[in-house]
Structure formats: structure tokens, C-alpha cells
């Protein structure tokens, strides 16, 4: 469905060049929900913005490819990319009120999305919009269509954004922290809704999140990012129960559990003002070796789990050393 290879994205700032994505590669298969997880500065949001052509100067995608249905999204001119985005790739942003136009009523926004990709008369647009709003669980869709974004609660507004993202029946949906701005009891409803619509439509989804619980409960595969690189990737069921990169292990251990001492990961993420040489995690890694300083670990398949498609970027003998670290 989507195959990203060696993506490199940089930003030119007053403080220097920020190396935000440094050779990011991953795949999203047909009907798969893939989560990109990482902390701030990991490059997870930059990665999807790059794929969707949303990077603006002073940022630029300087290398790599993103193949979607036989087309390299990174090589498409703006207009062609805009046509794919919206029609074949739906996008759900973190803040629904930033995604909706405050001065157009909701019906006009359905009309704009429809007309940007084809022709339709008013009655058809309204009919389709009403149907979509019902599918995202909005009671009284007529009133919502005639109203404006500011009249909606956060949860309702995000439901409208989801309806717009799915309106043209895209095969891939990209979501950037789609519930982070919402209340806890609303988050769960929205996640259930999105996952249900993706599964039922046999669509694929790429979801960016900092929430390990969202990945564990809603995703098939996970891409763990650190400092603009993928450090581990594979099926959630095995990555989260038997992490192989020391960073993945540390992240899972940083979740507080009552009655257990908290296992905080020391230090902080490096700034990205110089192109990282060696493993970016080495300063915080209990197992770092001299080699980790000089040589950037390439992402490689893990021998014994290869049928499961796990990969990891680490110089350690991860299958032997990291489980030992987890146990001890």
C-alpha cells in the first residue's frame, strides 16, 4: 500500500540545519494499521508530513521515496499530490478546530472536498454528507451540517474531521495524534470509531502517536522512532511483549505501575543540529559499546524472528543481550 524508503527531511533554522528525518524506511500493508511511536523530536510527525507533501520551506525533503499504488509521492508535483491526498489518502489531524474552516459552515466543507475531486450537485453532496456524519456517530447530522465548527465539542469536531477524511473512500488514512487534544472518555470512543471504520472498509492506516497504549490496542505493526531514525519495527504483539531495541524496552518500562519503583530512562533526546554519527541513543543506553559511537547501526532483520518481519537498528546481539537486560 505505502512503502517509504530512506526518507530524509531537513529544516534550515537560524541555529543551523535540523536533521529531522534521517533515512526513514517502513511499509504499510493492505488492510494494516501501522503505528509510528516516539517522543517529541523523534521525527514521527515530520515523517508523515513528508509523505503527504506538507513540508514547507524552510523545511525540505532531500531524499528517499514514498511509493503509494505505484506512484512516488515525493516526486509528484503539488497539484497531483493534492489530488491523491483527500481522494485516495485521507488525513486526520491532531486538532480538529485547526483542520476545520471556522468561517464556512460544515456543509460547505463537505462540498469543497467533494468538488475538489469531481462534480456533484448540491443535493447529492448533502445526502452523502448526512450519511457520513451518521456513520461517524453524529446524532442530528442536519443541525451539524448547517452549523459551524465553533459550535461543536472537541469530540464532535473530530468526528466531522473523520467524516471528511473518509468521504471519498480513501484506501489509506493517515492520522497524526488524532485523540491527543480530546478528553480521556472521548478519546476511547474516537479510537474505537476510527479503527472500526478502517477495518470495516478494509482500508490501511498510518497513525502517529506518543501513546504506547494506542499502539498496543489498535495497531497491527509498530515503527519505533528515535532522533529521526527507525530503531525498531515489527508486529505489535511481539515488539511490545519482547522488545529488542534498548530504547523500546526503556519506553515500555517508563510506564508507571503502582507498587513498583518507576524505571525512568535518564538523559534526554539529542538535538538534531548535526547529522548524527553513530547510534543516537548511545548516551542513554546502558549497553553502549565503542562501536555505537563511530558507526550508525543500519536497520536489519532479526534472524530468528524473520518470518515475523521484525527489524532493529542496534549493534548489540539483541536477541541475547536485550532480553537479558529486560530480565535483570
Amino acid at each position, binding site marked *: 500500500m505505502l512503502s517509504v524508503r530512506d526518507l530524509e527531511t531537513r529544516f534550515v533554522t537560524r541555529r543551523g540545519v535540523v536533521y529531522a528525518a534521517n533515512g526513514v524506511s517502513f511499509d504499510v500493508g493492505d488492510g494494516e494499521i501501522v503505528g509510528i511511536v516516539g*517522543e*517529541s523530536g523523534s521525527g514521527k510527525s515530520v515523517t508523515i508530513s513528508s509523505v503527504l507533501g506538507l513540508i514547507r520551506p524552510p523545511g525540505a525533503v532531500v531524499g528517499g521515496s514514498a511509493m503509494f499504488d505505484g506512484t512516488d509521492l515525493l516526486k509528484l508535483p503539488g497539484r497531483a499530490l493534492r489530488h491523491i491526498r483527500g481522494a485516495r489518502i485521507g488525513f486526520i489531524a491532531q486538532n480538529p478546530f485547526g483542520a476545520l474552516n471556522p468561517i464556512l459552515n460544515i456543509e460547505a466543507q463537505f462540498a469543497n472536498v467533494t468538488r475538489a475531486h469531481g462534480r456533484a450537485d448540491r443535493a447529492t453532496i448533502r445526502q452523502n454528507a448526512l450519511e457520513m456524519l451518521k456513520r461517524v456517530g453524529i446524532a442530528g447530522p442536519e443541525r451539524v451540517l448547517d452549523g459551524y465548527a465553533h459550535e461543536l*465539542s*472537541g*469530540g*464532535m469536531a473530530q468526528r466531522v474531521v473523520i467524516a471528511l477524511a473518509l468521504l471519498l473512500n480513501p484506501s489509506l488514512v493517515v492520522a497524526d495524534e488524532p485523540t491527543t487534544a480530546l*478528553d*480521556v*472518555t*472521548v*478519546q*476511547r*470512543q474516537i*479510537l*474505537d470509531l476510527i479503527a472500526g471504520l478502517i477495518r470495516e472498509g478494509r482500508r490501511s492506516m498510518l497513525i502517529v502517536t*506518543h*501513546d*504506547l*497504549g*494506542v*499502539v*498496543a*490496542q489498535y495497531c497491527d505493526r509498530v515503527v519505533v522512532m528515535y532522533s529521526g531514525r527507525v530503531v525498531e519495527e515489527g508486529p*505489535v*504483539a511481539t515488539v*511490545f*511483549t519482547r522488545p529488542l531495541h534498548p530504547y523500546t524496552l*526503556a*519506553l*515500555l518500562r*517508563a*510506564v*508507571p*505501575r*503502582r507498587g513498583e*519503583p*518507576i*524505571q*525512568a*530512562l*535518564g538523559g*534526554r*533526546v539529542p538535538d538534531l543540529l548535526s547529522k548524527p554519527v553513530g547510534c543516537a541513543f548511545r548516551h542513554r543506553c546502558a549497553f553502549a559499546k565503542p562501536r555505537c559511537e563511530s558507526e550508525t547501526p543500519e536497520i536489519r532483520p532479526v534472524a530468528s524472528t524473520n518470518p515475523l518481519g521484525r527489524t532493529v537498528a542496534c549493534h548489540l546481539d539483541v536477541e541475547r543481550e536485550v532480553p537479558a537486560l529486560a530480565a535483570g
Partner: protein
Amino acid sequence: MPLVDLRNVFRSFRRPDGSSVWAVNDVSLTVEQGQTTALIGESGSGKSTLGRLVLGLLPPDSGTVSFEGVNIAGLPRPEMRRLRARLGVVFQEPYESLNPRLTVGAIVEEPLIIHRPALTRAERRARVDQALREVDLDPQVADRYPQAMSGGQQQRVGIARALILEPSLVVLDEPTSSLDLSVRAQILELFGRLRAKHGLTYLFISHDITTVEYFSDQVIVLYLGRVVERGPTPEVLARPRHPYTQALLSARLSVDPTVSPPHFPMTGDPPSPTAFIPGCPLVGRCPLEVSECSKAPVPLHAVGVGHEVACIRA
């Protein structure tokens, strides 16, 4: 005697359009010395307003807020000043709560200049150094400005400032919500260590039930400005009786993919904060709702030792 005692506190805010928001609606609660009491709720639950009422930063419309048995409303100025020195606060956004024109050292020193005028400059300096060390910062950061620091380091500066006067009560208002997972764990570990070392009393305001479970002795669950359930944290989270507490718990997503999330019982969004609600605030979203629920406010009643719930179906 509890350290903090709120009795029947009401507080509303007037909005520009003339409507009123009932931020805190008949809340009574206590904070016991040496314990960590968590206020948990979503946006609009009134948890941050309660924090400001406890700190004396906001007067109640009615009801009393007492600290060590003394009603803080209408305290004469010198007494209020002495009281303020015994209350510390750590905010959610470390950067926004630190003055960008002051160095880290000046920020941490400021409460000493105001409340400890007898100290010499050298004595203040020594206390600042010690406070920075206690939050695992190198005292050399005193010469730096907060904008040159990471979010986690900024939050440590905020904690050093909150603790410099050795307060009796520290209000932690979502202190880890804006931090990354690995930094959040570091800060929680630090709060735990400082609590053990100084016997601190925390009022911990949070929307995150995982952190509340890990960190608190007592929990008070708020919804639309009212207490819906409270009690010892292990008891309330093991046997939640209010449908809202149950919903908060089942909204939590385990990081273990082999554990499937429990059925989520609630529908809809919280209502507009300006709406007048005559009965239970959960009416319209509750799976157990009956017609009596919307008629009159539901008082808290005991369901276990120290465990109270405001629900006629519980």
C-alpha cells in the same frame, strides 16, 4: 486536623456572553498531612479551579477553605503572606510559568527575597544551589535562562522554586502532562523521592489515571465541578462504584497487547459547562441512568471505609 479542609465550596465564572460556568459546585474535601491526594477529572471538571482555591489565589463564592483549621478567606495581608510561603505550586507548562528574562538562579531565589528578608545574599545563594541539586540539576545552570533548557529541565527549575521555602503543601497541577514519556517517569520519580525525604503533602491534579494510581494515597474523582467518588486510591481503582470512575478506568489502554481493553460503557461528550444541571452531572452519558437521576443533586454516601460515591445506582 486535616491540613486543608474545604466545606461546601462553590465557585462560578462569568463568561463574556453573560452566561455562568459552575466550575466548582458544592465541593467538600480534605487533604491529610503527609498524604498525596489526587484530584482527577477531565477538562471542565473544576480540578484546576480547586487547586487555585486551595492556594488562596481565588476566593470561593460561598463555602470555606481552611488551612490548618484557619479559614483563609479574609485573612489580614501579613497572615496571608505567611500562609503563601507555606504553599508551593508546580504548573503544567514549565516554560510558561518561568520568567524568560530571569536566570534560573534568580527564578529559584525570588521566593527567598520576598519571604525570607533576613537571609544574606550568600545564604540565599547556598539555598538555591541546594535546591537545584535536590532536583538533580547542576548548580551551574543558575546562570542560564530557562529557554535554553529542555522541557524536563525547565520543570525541575519549577520544582526547585516550589520547594525553596520548604512548604507544607505542594499543589502539583498536571505537572507531567506536557512532558514526554521518558521525562515524565524521571519527574514522577523525583516527586516520589522528595516526598519521602521531606514528608511533603501533595495535592496532585491530573487527568491521567495511570499516574494517579501510581502516585496517590487518596483519590477524588471530579465531574463537572462535583465530587462523584472518593476514597483510598487502591480501593477506589480496584472497586470503582461510580459509572464515571468506571468509564475513566476502562478508557485506559494497556501497553500489553495481550490484554484487550474492557468494554467502554459511556457515550457522548461532556455537556456545555454553562448548562444548569439539576441532578446527577452524568445524565445523558450514563449507562445506568434512571429517571430519578435528573431530579435532584445526588449526595455522597459511604460504600466502604473512607470510600464514598454520589450515585443512586451504586
